[in-house]
């Protein structure tokens, strides 16, 4: 399942909104996901991302979905630098 992260906004900055986004994603989209399905996070429509937002968002999802979470590569400089800063690595999309 691919998630368009820009649907949470194109400037993703605060810790509180990162956590709220993760909670909303879990409740509204991931409720029925199976444990064999990848959750691909697509940041390509995001203009501004910060470690505060990404830390809260990804820590929450990693805790619940572990290696099901995959972050797709992005050309955006703030997405790349944020992922590097928080120790996350983008991977190519799965073929389906």
């Amino acid at each position, binding site marked *: 399942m691919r998630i368009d992260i820009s649907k949470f906004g194109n400037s993703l900055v605060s810790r*509180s909104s990162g956590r709220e986004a993760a909670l909303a994603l879990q409740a509204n989209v991931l409720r029925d996901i199976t444990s064999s399905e990848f959750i691909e996070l697509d940041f390509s429509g995001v*203009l501004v991302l*910060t470690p505060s937002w990404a830390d809260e968002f990804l820590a929450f999802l990693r805790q619940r979905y572990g290696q099901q979470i995959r972050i797709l590569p992005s050309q955006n400089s*703030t997405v790349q630098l944020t992922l590097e800063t928080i120790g996350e690595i983008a991977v190519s999309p799965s073929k389906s």
Partner: protein
Amino acid sequence: MTALEWASQSRPEEPPADFYCRSVDVWQGRFTKIAPTLIRAGIHTDIAALFASMVGEIGDNCFTHNAPGWIDIPGCWLEYHIEGNQIQCWISDRGRGILNSLKAALPSLETHREALLASLTKRISGRTPEKRGNGLKYVVEVLTRLPVGVFTLQTGDASFHCNLPLNKTLLESSITAASTMVRGTYCEITATLPYAN
């Protein structure tokens, strides 16, 4: 009144309405205009986004490390002016400052200088037991990528002041004693950003 005067004066007073972000909602509403405004001014999208993300990280700290424990006036001061490809930006708060914030995680910290250096170089968060503390390390990385300008971050009597792009080997020596004591934090950024082709 300037952002520095507001952050350092002993008398509590609300900032001018144009610059005052009393709540995180007001802050976010104003902050999210920075990158689009820079892009409309013709600035390279990647650089505009990097600049805005740095402001976002610093401004968000004003809330996440202080609420609801500000000294007196809640929220932060956010002011910016764009002229051509030059931007000047000020962010400040009357919060507990970096030393008091980080002491929760690192009780051995004694001075504002030690705390400021730790915040810029170590993965440490004042919101222990949370495993965070990436924000100002991220800011340092952005500073190495901005082509021309000056950056200042002050807390208490310690001030980190550097030319852009930042040479990280000079980071520690760029922290000096400030003449004015800031209650909380104060940041000033002046940058000349490249136009998109």
